[in-house]
């Protein structure tokens, strides 16, 4: 009732201020985080829309992709055909299982709760043939926590949190929760000595197409300017090493490859790009499981639709961008040094087949570059050119809507941060100075900075 009315009022606040003139200083166009692709919604549907300027032919494909995204895959062989081929080992039954409402998954609330949206990447010493992580010989490059009947799941990960107290410059106390990960129930023997783990939470998906639309030379220039470096990763379709853009360590080159890799790795669904099941040699029951009549499991039209969907999920508009707190928070964000890596404004290039994404002035708050984030966040697992303490600067658009879309605001690569302030306080390494600037700000300034982020 009251909540509904409030949400509705917020929905058009930005537009109302712009439409009816007056108001304090501030640039109303800053609401358009995705340029002409921006949509307007502050409800749990906020991440479900196609780009505002998408043509109707692409919208038809987008909606098919939306259906596949929400589809539960089932064990093969099954009738009706078309949604079977699950696993044999898997992490989730559907894309939306880990990315609810195209949003961000939450880490387990307790040590006993199963991992769903938090994926454990695995590797051993060395690199694969293309310079990427060297997969575990028995378990591959991620831990699949579930399996179809008659096939063993790989193992059960757990997380426990320890509170780490700290103090702001003005004496106010805070506490960060430091995670510790363990795995038991390993079905194919113990891990190798020196096994490397990297827990990674399923992020929100909006705006990925715009990030892919940033010209490569722009990404390289941004990385150079921010003191970071780009990742160079394997492109399966072209069998070449190319610029990495997606994933917590920028280890995927494109929305297309990220989509098909997640289908195979997380759900066990094969595609034209990855036509074989993920069954490392010791997993004989996995390899012997009955196949689907649909080979590959993901049909050509559905695959194409999934890529259009992933490329076209629109970024919602920022809220209250002309409010004094936003204007002040944004200035503090820049003064503290956050904007060095979380780059506020970028212009996209021309993308073949995606006119809606082309030549857009966007506000992603990322440089797509890798930066050393210090030992507190390090996972110790190299990923192509990313070291064990480097992470890609994540975009910040849409994060203020996570409470509406996903009923939580757990941030960073494994969801350890309970909101923006904790996420900032975890920053170290190249971000240490910016973090300290935030930590030592007066409370009113810290609050304004967080208000700004909540408005994105």
């Amino acid at each position: 009732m009251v909540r509904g009315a409030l949400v509705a009022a917020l929905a058009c606040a930005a537009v109302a201020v712009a439409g009816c003139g007056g108001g304090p200083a501030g640039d109303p166009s800053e609401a358009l985080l995705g340029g002409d692709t921006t949509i307007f919604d502050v409800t749990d549907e906020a991440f479900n829309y196609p780009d505002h300027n998408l043509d109707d032919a692409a919208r038809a494909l987008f909606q098919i992709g939306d259906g596949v995204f929400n589809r539960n895959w089932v064990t093969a062989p099954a009738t009706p055909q078309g949604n079977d081929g699950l696993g044999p080992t898997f992490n989730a039954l559907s894309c939306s299982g880990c990315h609810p409402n195209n949003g961000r998954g939450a880490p387990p609330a307790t040590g006993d709760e199963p991992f769903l949206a938090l994926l454990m990447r695995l590797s051993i010493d060395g690199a694969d043939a293309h310079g990427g992580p060297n997969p575990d010989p028995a378990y591959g490059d991620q831990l699949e926590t579930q399996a179809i009947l008659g096939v063993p799941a790989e193992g059960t990960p757990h997380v426990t949190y320890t509170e780490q107290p700290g103090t702001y410059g003005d004496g106010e106390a805070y506490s960060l929760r430091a995670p510790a990960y363990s795995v038991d129930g390993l079905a194919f023997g113990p891990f190798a000595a020196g096994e490397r783990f990297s827990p990674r939470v399923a992020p929100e998906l909006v705006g990925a197409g715009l990030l892919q639309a940033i010209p490569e030379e722009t990404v390289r220039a941004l990385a150079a300017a921010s003191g970071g470096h780009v990742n160079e990763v394997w492109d399966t379709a072209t069998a070449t090493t190319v610029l990495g853009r997606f994933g917590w360590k920028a280890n995927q080159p494109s929305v297309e490859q990220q989509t098909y890799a997640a289908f195979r790795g997380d759900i066990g669904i094969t595609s034209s790009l990855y036509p074989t099941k993920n069954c490392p040699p010791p997993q004989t029951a996995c390899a012997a499981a009955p196949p689907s009549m649909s080979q590959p499991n993901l049909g050509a039209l559905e695959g194409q639709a999934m890529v259009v969907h992933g490329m076209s999920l629109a970024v919602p508009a920022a809220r209250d961008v002309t409010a004094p707190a936003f204007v002040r928070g944004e200035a503090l964000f820049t003064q503290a040094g956050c904007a060095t890596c979380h780059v506020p404004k970028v212009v996209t290039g021309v993308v073949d087949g995606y006119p809606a994404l082309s030549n857009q002035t966007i506000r992603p708050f990322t440089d797509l570059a890798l930066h050393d984030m210090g030992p507190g966040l390090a996972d110790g697992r190299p990923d192509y050119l990313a070291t064990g303490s480097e992470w890609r600067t994540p975009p910040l658009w849409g994060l203020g809507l996570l409470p509406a879309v996903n009923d939580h605001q757990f941030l960073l690569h494994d969801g350890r941060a309970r909101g923006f302030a904790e996420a900032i306080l975890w920053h170290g390494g190249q971000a240490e100075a910016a973090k300290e600037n935030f930590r030592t700000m007066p409370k009113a300034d810290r609050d304004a900075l967080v208000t700004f982020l909540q408005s994105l």
Partner: protein
Amino acid sequence: MRASLLALALAAAGCGAPDATSAVVKQYAAMMRANAVDESAKLAALSDAVDAFVAAPSPDAFAAAQSAWLDTRFIYGEFEVTRFYGGPIDEVQGRVNEWPIDENFIDYTTGNPTGGIINDPQHYPQLTPAVLASSDERGGIENLSTGFHALEFLLWGQRPDQTAGPGERPYTDYVDGGTATNQDRRRTYLKAATDLLVSDLAGVAADWDVTDATSYAAGLVAQKPKDALELILRGWSNMTVSELYFERMNDPFLTQNRKDEESCFSESTSIDISGDIEGIYNVWLGHYGSLSGPGLMNLVDAKDHALAMTMMAQLSAARDAVNAIPPPFDHAVIAPAGTDAHDKVQAALDALAPLAATIRQIATTLGVTVNI
């Protein structure tokens, strides 16, 4: 009071034509209240039928519950035009009408005789509306345990073959010692899920009562008229283009997959889409049942007569074409090219297609932003 009214009036004046817009917003709120109240009455009838069936399961009582379920759907379809702007239905939509559902999460399915919450007394010892509400959407939106389509699955059961008729769950699934297992828990589940739906929709109807100053409707009509109009258009446009045209009709036609078809257990999707287009038509005209007043058409007509006439013609044609599809819809969408049913689906899609561009023009003309 006087000062705030004056301020409101001044603010509204800055946005132009407040009286006409305000009248449309008020008419819309009255229509949606009537629509929600009508739906609540249909749900009360469903609740009575479920009570009667659960008390004494019989073939006739089962058929009566199925019939009562079907009878709720057209009016609910009309009401869906209030989605997509954070209104009352969006607060509960996830547990009211979300789909597709995962049958295995609720009850047994082919090859999985012990599946689902019903057959899991260890983890779900109590089956109350509150327990079902908290299990809904756990681990993803397909893990639906509540709402219209959970009830539909409980009343009809699985449909392993798309070309056959509706699901054929035997009523003896609810008879102690009958078919399947945990019949008592299935009765409890059916009743609890019905009660939750009744209570969710009663809350929505209360929120559309403009005479209650704390209701959503009261807040909507007290807003700047243009802001309220923008919300109305966001719901109306999204329901027309993204939801009805693309998701509910074009998707299953292109993919030929029953998973993409809404009321697949009961084979009643024709009712859903007819209700949807009726609700879209209602908001355009400002009509619902015996209520008649200014609608979006009047606002557009005052600014651009030709555009209003274009929309009127296109929307009427689309409504006729959607209603001309021979039921059941899921048979029509997979009918071979050249058959009447296939051609009627194609004709309906062709009739709906131009609405997107026209609605974008309408939004521009009215000076509001929509998400299509």
